[in-house]
């Protein structure tokens, strides 16, 4: 009961702030709204008992949004001042596209919701388990993707350094 109430609150927050994030004309406000969305998502994880995922969500995305802020501050002069409204035609087209997307997703969710329902295991995952899964080589363990991502990130860091040094 209580959990359901909290879920609906979080869901509402996610919905409202998602819309605000894409409609706001000020980049830094958009970033803030996005942050709210991410935090509410983290709240959902907490609700499900995924503590680790919650903490990672907050740490990574709060940190990520912070970087967004910095870029926003660095890159914009007077935020939102120069943004022009789109043409009416374009707006309509965009609206239809968005609605089509929503309908598509709704369709999939509606027809598959019963199948997914049962598969969620409601047991507490310890950090140890997560760690072993991350760095294990068995079935349903993720050493390969983990390492692949780390190499990708390393490449990104080197790339960033190269770009920074060019200046």
């Amino acid at each position, binding site marked *: 009961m209580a959990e359901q109430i909290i879920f609906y609150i979080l869901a509402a927050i996610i919905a409202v702030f998602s819309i605000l994030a894409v409609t706001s004309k*000020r980049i*830094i*406000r958009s970033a*803030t709204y996005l*942050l709210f969305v991410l935090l509410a998502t983290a709240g959902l994880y907490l609700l499900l008992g995924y*503590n*680790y995922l*919650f*903490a*990672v969500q*907050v*740490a990574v995305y*709060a*940190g990520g*949004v*912070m*970087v967004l*802020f*910095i870029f*926003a*501050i*660095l890159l914009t002069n007077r935020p939102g001042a120069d943004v022009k409204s789109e043409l009416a035609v374009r707006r309509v087209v965009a609206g239809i596209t968005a609605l089509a997307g929503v309908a598509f997703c709704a369709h999939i969710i509606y027809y598959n919701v019963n199948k997914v329902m049962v598969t969620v295991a409601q047991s*507490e995952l*310890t*950090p140890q388990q997560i760690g072993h899964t991350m760095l294990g080589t068995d079935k349903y363990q993720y050493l390969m993707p983990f390492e692949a991502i780390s190499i990708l990130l390393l490449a990104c860091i080197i790339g960033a350094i190269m770009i920074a040094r060019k200046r």
Partner: protein
Amino acid sequence: MQEPLEISNLTTWLDTTLRGIMPSMWVILIECVLVGVALLAAYAVIALILIYAERKITAFFQARYGPNRVGKYGILQSVADMIKILLKEIVKINRVDRFLFFAAPFFMIVASMLTFGAIPFGKGLHAVDFNIGVLYVTAVSSLGIIGVLLAGWSSNNKYSMIGAMRSGAQFVSYELSAGFALMTIVVLAGTMQFSTMIEGQRYCWNLFNGHISSMIAFVLYLISGHAETNRGPFDIPEAESELTAGYHTEYSGLQFGFYYLAEYLNMFIIASIATTVFLGGYMPIQVHGWEGFNQVMTFIPTYVWFFGKTAVLIFLSLWVRWSFPRLRIDQLLNLEWKYLLPINLVNIVVMVIIVLSGLTLTDLFPSLF
């Protein structure tokens, strides 16, 4: 009961009585509210005490007396300040981004409150005991920086803006070091949960258990934690002599009060996490085999141990703060990226080796611990 002065006695008694007279759902609700109120009250009271302590200790470092007019030895000074701050007008600033301007202090205060909730103040004085406690604390406390950035941006003030940019750079850097230092100890303790971590330090603090590596991690954590609280010599986002008040230049009244409160609480949080992770938290000093001694030590309530250890670290932080000049931004980043981070990375590897090859004190001298 062995420890008559523990507050946990009271809480258990309260819990059992409540459960006796009403259904468990109501009990949980009431207990949630009680815990929340207690945490909020503790938050405010600790901040007030810290503010007083800092002013007094600072004064003594500076060959002054500090506040000594309001109440005996000025003990009511911070209460008076609090009342003043509550009554002060919130000045309206022209052309600010109002929503963000008002939201910013809340980020700050909410982040520090969320972290505050996870701190084990004593046996049974632990609101939430996550199995990922260390990670949680690191994650949640990083939200505070958003408050600083937003404040700096939305204030429509160039000093604030520079302060915000500086704090962004500073926070990104030092969060790394603080995290790595904590992870070093996680490697040693084998857990991220505060309660088990404290239990594991019954006879040997983590600070000593991993000897060299732990001590380095301790110092690194203190330095980077100190930097995260934006206090001198790392107070470059505020930098009084350069940016007047940095990111909170434009704030007044209660909004400024939030920043003020959060700054002190962050200092407390950093000290208490260091206490919990390195100095055995609320665990009394116990020596293996000395039963009489242990008995006496256990008689002192755990929360006294906790606050005592934390106070020592806070004093250390004040001592550092009032001894050094402020770093410049490039010195600050140099310190992090050229000194703290490499040392940290090496240190974490050393710690892994120590743990794996059984070189920790508890492994070397199992009879002592």
